[in-house]
Every structure is written in C-alpha cells, then in structure tokens.
C-alpha cells in the first residue's frame, strides 16, 4: 500500500519539478529591492513591557520572536570559566558565555533595543567583555562591557541590521579568549520573522590549541605557540568531540525542513561546512539576507555565520563535517543529524553503515566500555574479555573503515584480518604496523596487496593493545592478549614515520 503512494508522490514531485519556473522570483539573486540596511532598521522607540530574552545552549535555538513591534529586550548573560570535557578523558579550561561553548543563542527582532547585562562570575580569574557583531558602534559593545570578576556591566544597543551575527570576547589577548571558547550567535530576525520550518538547530565551529596532542588524556592547557601557528589540536562543533554524536546527535524526521544556524568562532580557521548526504536547499551566505540555492558546501568565515535550510527526504544518519576533511576525521569536526521515518527507496536505496562515516569516532554510549577498561588497565585488572570488548568499540570506530566490520577487508585493496595468516604469524609485527603504518607489498592468505596503511600512533598504548587483542581473538582468530606494556616496548624501540604522532 505504501509503495504505490510513494511512487505517485514521487511522480507528482518529478512533474512539479518539470514545470517551467518563473524567472527571477524564486531566488534572491535578481532585481529585488534591498532591505534598506541599517537605515531601515530604526523602527522607532521600543514598545510594550521589556522582555527577558530566552537564551539557549547549543544545539537548541530559542523560539521565533513572533512580534510585530520593536521592544526592549533584556539579555542576561553570565561569563563562567569552567573545566569541561573537550574529548573523552580530556579536560580543558573553557571560558564561556553562559556556561557552554558555544555561548548562549540570542534571538531578537530587527529594531529591538537590547539592554545587555554581562556578569562575570566571582570565581572567574579573568576580566571579560563582549563584542556583538550585531551592534552598530565602535568595538561592538566591547569597551562598554569590560567587566572584572564578580562584577556586572550593562550597555544598550539598537539592532539596526537583520542577520545572523557572531559575538565574542575582545579582551586582551583576544585570540586566547576566543580560543578558549568565548563566542556564540545572535540572530536578528527581519520584522516579518523567518519563514517557519520544522526544526531549527544551533551549530558552531571552533578550534582548540592544547599542549598535549589530539586526544592525549588528562587536563590540557592552552598552547599559545600552536595558536599563533594556527596548528589546531581540535576542530569541533559545539565545543566538544561528543557534542553532536551518538545520543547527542540532532534529530529530525523524514519530510521535515531543517534550518541550521551555523557559526564559526575560529579563532583562526575558516569552515567548509557540509552535511554528508544532504544538499542545502537554501544557504543564506555569511548569515545575510539573500540566499543561494542547491549548495553542497558553504564557507563559514571565522567570526562569521551561515543559515542553511534543507528538507530531509530519507531516514538515516547524516554526518556534519568541516569538509577540510582531516579536521573531521583527525581533529573532531564531526556531528550527526539522525533522521527517522520510512525509507524512500526511490530517493536513496543504499544500505547505511554508521561506522564508515564515523571515522575514528565511536558513539558516546559505547565509550563507557572503553573508559571502564582504561580504568581497569590502570589498576592492572583488565581481563582479556574486557580488552576484547573495548577493542571492538575502538576497532569499529577506527579500523573497520578499511578492514571492515567483519574483518574481511576488501579484496585487492585492504588485507583481511579474519583468519589472517599474516596477522597471526607475528604479533609484535602487528603492533609495529599499527604504530608505524605499512607501505608496500605484502601477501596475506595467498593474495598480494600493495597499499598504504597510515600510522595509528595517535592511539595510546592501551587502545592499541585492546584493538589488537580484539583482532587476534575475533572472526575465527585465536590468540593471546596484548598488553599495553607490549605496545609501549615497541613504541620505544621503533621510530614513527615523519609527521605521525609520537
């Protein structure tokens, strides 16, 4: 019953798509009157009672303004300096607007008068201020909002221009305040509001510079030198590696129109924002008024934004990335949009496998297994079974992309690990290959392979030990457990290829 309906619908859509379109009316790129800019934005004095702005933390967005007059809006924002997780087992001292990275989302209407209260928590060590790109005036409010710990600054501005604007801290050194997470978005709606959509989300990219390498455990201080060199350790959506994956994925249903308010705090990098498996129906480039249609990847400047809209037509997990792609798979710039609903095989008939897209990311709930065994390894009490369980999670995240979840590899390209004579013959060699990579011809189970495996030395000893223990005891393989000491020995005795993590 469902089938014919779907077909009819699909046919109807195709027909509709074939109708000639009137030229120059659908998109914003031709002969439209401009919006008048800031000159049109002074919509008179604020009316009615003052309104306390609803602030939300990412990925949530406050409800539409839904108001046909300019009001006085009070924004009450607290600056907090907080230790939070930047990646599993890694903490960082974030400086935040509202206790989260990115900072709270502010939503107002063009012509509103904003009375901004910036409170710097008494526990703060640093003075802070705020520069809102939505402000017309020198410094964007920064000079008026400079606030010592335990104090509050108040200033007012009128939102003359509509658009999606970044705000950030501008206290010296500006770069460090931004690098520690002090940025967020303020949306100034046009007087008539934005067209309604089914789902709205807040996604903000920013990169982090830590003394330790990517995913090195423990508390990581800020590294000024790396920041100056623009050599980011992490590139993240919404302030942590787990912020938008697994259970924290943003969610929609088939048929929904989704609007993403995308910001980029920087401090340095420009984002090539992309959703794998989706095409943006509309992109309001740089958070401005006009839109481009049918866009695959949109550039989001540091200190800039974009609004993207798209209808989700098929269910599944859509991966959100910075398409400067090493950032996605090696620095954490990954998020997920999970869409539920019925398959539409006419649109997409593929079988979806999360792990392929996940790279070396694993779902947040699975990480607890890894955490438990890491803890056990520290006390020397990890059992072989625990190591295998933890290894499976890590394998599915990191290794299965090439060697496949069933360990069979891909004929002629990626050697199999299942029932592999090459793997089982020399476990020390296996450790070496994981650590240092492998280039050149090998013969596995009688078949020749000549390919490149990159070094995986960014994994720690424990993680490598678990992955190998899993591989040596899965898919028909029967072998010993590898200990992290075994890996540490090989790590000490061999040299990493140039450019690999130590």
């Amino acid at each position, binding site marked *: 019953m469902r089938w014919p309906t779907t077909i009819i619908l699909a046919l109807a859509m195709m027909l509709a798509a074939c109708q000639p379109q009137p030229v120059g009316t659908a998109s914003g790129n031709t002969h439209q009157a401009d919006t008048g800019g800031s000159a049109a934005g002074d919509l008179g004095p604020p009316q009615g009672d003052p309104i306390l702005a609803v602030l939300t933390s990412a990925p949530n967005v406050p409800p539409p303004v839904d108001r046909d007059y300019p009001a006085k809006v009070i924004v009450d924002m607290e600056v907090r*300096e907080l230790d939070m997780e930047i990646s599993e087992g890694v903490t960082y001292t974030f400086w935040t607007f509202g206790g989260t990275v990115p900072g709270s989302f502010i939503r107002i209407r063009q012509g509103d008068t904003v009375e901004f209260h910036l409170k710097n928590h008494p*526990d*703060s060590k*640093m003075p802070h201020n705020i520069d809102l790109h939505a402000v017309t005036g020198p410094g964007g409010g920064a000079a008026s909002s400079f606030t010592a710990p*335990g104090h509050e600054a108040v200033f007012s501005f009128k939102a003359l221009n509509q658009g999606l604007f970044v705000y950030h801290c*501008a206290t010296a050194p500006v770069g*460090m305040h931004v690098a520690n997470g002090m940025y967020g978005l303020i949306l100034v709606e046009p007087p008539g509001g934005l067209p309604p959509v089914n789902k709205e989300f807040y996604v903000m990219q920013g990169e982090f510079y830590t003394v330790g390498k990517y995913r090195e455990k423990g508390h990581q*201080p800020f590294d000024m030198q790396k920041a100056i060199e623009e050599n980011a350790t992490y590139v993240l959506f919404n302030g942590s590696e787990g912020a938008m994956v697994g259970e924290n994925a943003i969610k929609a249903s088939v048929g929904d129109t989704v609007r993403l308010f995308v910001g980029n705090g920087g401090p340095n990098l420009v984002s090539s924002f992309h959703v794998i498996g989706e095409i943006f129906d509309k992109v309001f480039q740089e958070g401005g008024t006009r839109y481009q249609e049918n866009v695959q990847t949109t550039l989001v400047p540091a200190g800039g934004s974009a609004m993207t809209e798209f209808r989700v037509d098929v269910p599944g997990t859509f991966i959100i990335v910075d398409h400067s792609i090493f950032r996605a798979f090696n620095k954490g710039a990954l998020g997920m949009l999970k869409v539920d609903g019925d398959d539409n095989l006419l649109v997409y008939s593929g079988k979806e496998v999360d792990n392929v897209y996940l790279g070396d990311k694993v779902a947040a709930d699975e990480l607890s297994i890894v955490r438990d065994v890491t803890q056990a390894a520290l006390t020397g009490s990890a059992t072989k079974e625990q190591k295998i369980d933890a290894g499976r999670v890590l394998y599915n995240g990191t290794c299965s992309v090439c060697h496949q979840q069933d360990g069979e590899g891909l004929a002629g390209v990626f050697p199999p690990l299942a029932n592999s004579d090459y793997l089982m013959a020399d476990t020390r060699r296996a450790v070496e290959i994981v650590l240092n990579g492998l280039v050149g011809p090998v013969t596995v189970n009688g078949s020749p392979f000549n390919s490149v495996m990159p070094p995986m030395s960014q994994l720690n000893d424990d993680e490598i030990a678990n992955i190998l223990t899993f591989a040596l005891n899965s898919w028909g393989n029967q072998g010993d457990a590898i200990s992290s000491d075994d890996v540490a020995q090989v790590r000490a005795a061999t040299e990493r290829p140039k450019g690999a993590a130590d």
Partner: protein
Amino acid sequence: MRIFIGLIAVVSLSGGFSKYSIANEYVKIPAGEFRSVIPEVDGDNLVAVAEFLVQEAPVTNAEFLRFVLHHPEWQRGRAVSLFVDDQYLSTWASPISLGPHSGPQQPVMQVSWFAANAYCEWQDARLPSWYEWEYIAAANDSMADARALPEWRQEILSWYSQLGGDQIVDVRSSPANYYRIFDTHGLIWEWVDDFNAFLVTGDNREQGGADQLQFCGAGAITMQEKENYAVLMRVAMLSALEARYTTRNLGFRCARQNEIKQ
C-alpha cells in the same frame, strides 16, 4: 561589647600567630633598567627603576586581620562603600575573624585598592608601581629577567588555565625568585599603585587612535615579543578594575621608597 570581642580576637590571634611568625620582610631591590610591556614614551619601552624595597610575599589574611583590628574603620561592614564594594573581605567568617575559607597564611583577597593602600600606609609604605611590580616579576629563580624563556611564559599561561575558584594555597608555597620574592606569578593578581594609569581601553583591539597609550591590548597584536602576552593579561585584569572593586583572586603587597627615573 565590640571592643571586648576585638580584644579576644587580638589575644587569640597573637596566640595563634607565633605559629606563623614569619614576618613579611621588605626586600631591597637594586635599581635597574628593563623593557616594559607598556612603553612610557611612544616607541621606547626601556624603563629605569630606582632602588626600592618590596614585601617578599603578598599580604596574608592574618596580616590584614591585624590591620583591621587596629583600624576598625576598614572592617567589613564599616568601611565606607565609596572605598570598597559589597564583596569586600566576603570570604572571612566575620569582620574580625577569618573562618574556614580564609587561611591565616593565604593571601588576603577581596580587598579594594583603597583598602590595600590604607594597609600599606599603616606600614609606612605604599603599593608598588606597575613598573616596580613588572620588574620583580620578570625574574625566575636564577635570572633577573627570564621573560625570554618559553618555560617562564608557559608557567604563567598555565596558571591562567587553572580555574579561579580553585583552592588558594599559602603564600611562600612556591620557591622564591631571583630577588628572594615569592608568588609574583601563579597565586593571585596584585594591586599596583598606578593600576588605573594604563588607560587601557576595554576593547583591546583599538589601536592608532588619538591616544597611543590607550591600546595596550592592541599592543598584544602589534608587539614583537610574544612573551609579553602573558604579562599583558595582568594589565588587562588591572585595567578592568575600579579602585573600590574587590575580586576573588586579587590581593597586594607593599613597597617603600619609590622613584622611577626616566
């Protein structure tokens, strides 16, 4: 009644004080020249500092308690609100007792510039000037000016990476520096006499405006020596303050015989 309580406090303090009999000595600092992060004259950041004396450690809670017992007008609740904000000495248990959150040998915090100044006057001293403070704070344990060392800078930056709400340790918990001065970095911010003379704008990116001095933060952009970054954050902190302000991580030490020659 109040006098009576005060007396008990004095007695019990002096009883407990022998345990902490370390006097906060004034250490003689030789005259010298150094390059400041804040140029006195446009383009020339070489600053001469005359010989002066400075306390080896920040003033402690116990020391400041003794002061307010002698000078009740500086007790919490009595101090004039023009001179202190409402968080003045708020971590103390009462106006004349420290309580569990303020150890006697921890640096006194939540004190305003006015209060710090009054304390130093009581000591026949004054607050150090920024240049004096910067001069002694440029040292590490073996060099008078260690600012070019990456470790020196990283140590300061990692203090910035620790939360302000964290437990404050006693003064002198870290080794003294080249001048036998303790805790210039890594413990608290410190008031200086001329903290409001920087004319640093709250927006630290303005530069090249009418007043060149107004841009210390922009100096962060244009400066050539990156190590200044770390010290400039202290300037930024001081410039965020008003003289009556008090904050959780802000204390002071006193100095004597001030003279800065050009």
